[in-house]
C-alpha cells in the first residue's frame, strides 16, 4: 500500500495534494493510484515509439494535467518539460524523457504493490 510517507520520500507536495482533497488522505491516495494507472502513460509510450510528435504532445499534455492535480512534483517536472518541448516542436531526446517518466511511475507502483 502506498502511504503518505512514500509520497513524501518521492518528493510529492503532499500538503497541496491533500488540500485539493479536503484533507481526505484516503481519497488522495486513491487519486494517486488512479493517476499511476492512467492510460496516458501508454499513449505517450506508443507515440514516442512511433515518433508521432502530435500524439505525443496530446498524451504528455493530458498527463501533465493529471499529475499536477495530485502534486507528484518530480514527475510533474519531467512531464511538463517534455510537453513544452513537444509544444514547441523542438528536437530532443524524448525517449530519455519517457524513460525517466516511466521509471518514476514504476518506482511508485512498486511501493504501492510492495
Amino acid at each position, binding site marked *: 500500500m502506498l502511504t503518505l510517507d512514500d509520497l513524501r520520500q518521492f518528493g510529492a507536495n503532499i500538503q497541496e495534494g491533500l*488540500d*485539493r482533497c479536503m484533507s481526505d488522505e484516503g481519497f488522495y491516495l486513491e487519486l494517486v493510484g488512479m493517476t499511476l494507472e492512467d492510460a496516458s502513460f501508454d499513449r505517450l509510450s506508443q507515440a514516442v515509439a512511433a515518433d508521432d510528435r502530435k500524439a505525443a504532445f496530446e498524451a504528455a499534455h493530458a498527463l501533465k494535467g493529471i499529475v*499536477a492535480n495530485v502534486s507528484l512534483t518530480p514527475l510533474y517536472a519531467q512531464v511538463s518539460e517534455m510537453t513544452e518541448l513537444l509544444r514547441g516542436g523542438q528536437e530532443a531526446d524524448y525517449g530519455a524523457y519517457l524513460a525517466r517518466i516511466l521509471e518514476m511511475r514504476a518506482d511508485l507502483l512498486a511501493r504501492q504493490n510492495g
Partner: protein
Amino acid sequence: MTTQMQELFRPSAERRRILIVEDEPVNRRILTRCLEGSYAVIPAAAGGEALEIVRDQIETISLMLLDLHLPDMHGLEILQRLKADPRYARLPVIVMTADSQAEVECLNLGAIDFIPKPYPRQEVILARIRRTVELSEDRDILRWTERDQLTGLYNKDFFYRYAVMLDDYHKDLATDALVLDVNRFHTLNDRFGKAYGDKVLQRIAEKALELVRSSGGIVCRSEADKFFIYCPHRTDYADILEKVSVSAEEDGSGNRIRLRMGVYAEADKSLDIERRFDRAKMASDAVRGSAANAFGLYDRSMSEAELLAEQLIEDFPAALREGQFRVYYQPKFDIRGDVPALYSAEALARWAHPRMGMVSPGVFIPLFERNGLIQALDYHIWSETAAQIRRWKEAQGLRLPVSVNVSRIDLLDPLLKDKLCALVADNGLDYADMILEVTESAYTEEAAQITETVKELRSLGFRIEMDDFGTGYSSLNTLSTLPIDALKLDMQFIRSAFAGRRDTRLLQAIIRLAEAVEVACIAEGVETKEQAEALKAMGCDVIQGYYFSPPLPAAEFTRFLSEEKRKPEGARER
C-alpha cells in the same frame, strides 16, 4: 401528498444537476468527489456524448464543466455549438483549463467563468459553481419576467424600473413620455381574429424597437394594445408616429391600422414615472377616434379634468345616498295646433354638490356613462320621477307623461324590464305615463340585442323617443324599422341651423325624414320665438327649450303646471 414529498417538490429543494465533460478519469473523479455532496453529477468522457446529454436533458442541467482537450472534439467547438443554438445558449459553461491564453478565448465565446488546472482547493471550485448556478438562474428568471411574451419588449414593471434608472444616470436630461395606442384594436381582433391582432402588435413592437435603438430610449408593451416609450426629449412626434405605423400595404390585407400617440413632453421628473405616463395616456385619449394617425400633446388642463373626474367618481356614492342628485323637469309643447299644448316633460338629473355647487350634467353624465355609474344614477332618476308622476296624479289630478333617459348600459341589463315594470306598478302608473329616451348612439353596437329590448319595452306600452338624433350613425335604411315613437333632434342641429348665416336646410331634411318614417319630431334647445316659429313652419311637432321654460325643480314645475292649467286657451300664445 406526503410531507416528505412536499419538502421535495419545491424549486429550492431540488438538487441541481451538473454535467462534467472531462475525459481523464482522475480529473472526473476529483470533480465528482468535490461536487457530489451538493449536486447531482452527470459525467461525460467525450464531446459527442456531452452534446447528446445536453440535447436530451437541457431543462434539468444547471451547469456544464468543460475540459478543452477531449478525444473527439475540442472544447471550444462544444462551446461554440451551444452558444449558437438558442435552445442551449442559456446553459452556463465553466471551462477548465491550464492554458491562460485559452481563458480569454473561452470567455469571449460565452463561457461564464473558468477553473484553472491544476484544480484549486475544493472550496474554491464549489464556491464558483454555486455562484454561477445562482446567477444564471436569476438571469433566467429575469429574462422570463422582464419581457412581454408576445412582443419580446419589456413589460411595464421593468420598463418603469429602467426608466427610473435612466433618470438616475441622466438627471438633467429632458425626457418625453410617449404612449402609442391602436385605434379600435378590439374590432381588429373581432374581425380578423386574435392571431391577426397579435401579428399587428408584434409588427408595431418591432418598429418601436428599431426606433429606440436608432435614436435612444426604451419601449414596452404596457397592456393589450398600448406601448410606452421613454426617450430623450424631441419634437418630431409626427415622424415617430409615421415610423411605428404599420401601413396597409405592408400588412398585405388592405386593412387600415390607425395609431394614436399621446405625448407628455419634457416630463416633470419630480412626478412618479407612472404619473408621467398617465399624462401621456390622457393626451392619447384626447385624440381617440381621430380618422388619421394622430398625436396629442399633454397640457395641464387635462390633469385638472382628470382630477375633477376622480373626485366626482369618489363623491358619487355619498351623493346618491344623500339625495344630492335632484330631478328637474322641462316641459315639451306640441306646436302643431294654433296654440302650443303641453305634451310631456323630460326628467333631467342635476347634481347639487355640497362643495362644488351645481355640477354640470355635461361633465358628470359622460363620465358616469364611461364607467358604468350611470346605471345607478338612471335608476335613481327613474324612481324619483315615477314617484313624482304619482304625486301629480294624486294631488292635482294631472296626467302628464314624463320622459326619462335610458342609457346604453341599462339596455344591456337583463333586469331592466323588471325594474321599470316594478316602478310603474309600485306607483300605480300606466306604462304610457313614462316615456323612455334612448340615444341614437345606443343602437350602434350590439344593435340587434338593443333593438330587441327596446321593442319589448315598447310592446308593454312605454313610448320610446330617440334622443340626440343626428349625432350617432344610424343607417337611414334601418331607421324605419327601429321601435321608436319620436325623433329628438340633437340640440346642436338647432344651434347651428340658426347660428350666424342661417341655414336650415339640414334641419328641414330631418324633419321630413321623421315625417317619412311616421314618427313625431321633437326639437330640443329651442330658445327664441324665431326658432319656434321656423320649426313650426318646417313641420316640427314638439318643442322643448328655454323658450317655454328652463328645467325646473319639482316644486316649481308643479307651480308651472298649475299656471298652465289655469290659462284660458287663447292666452298660451307666446
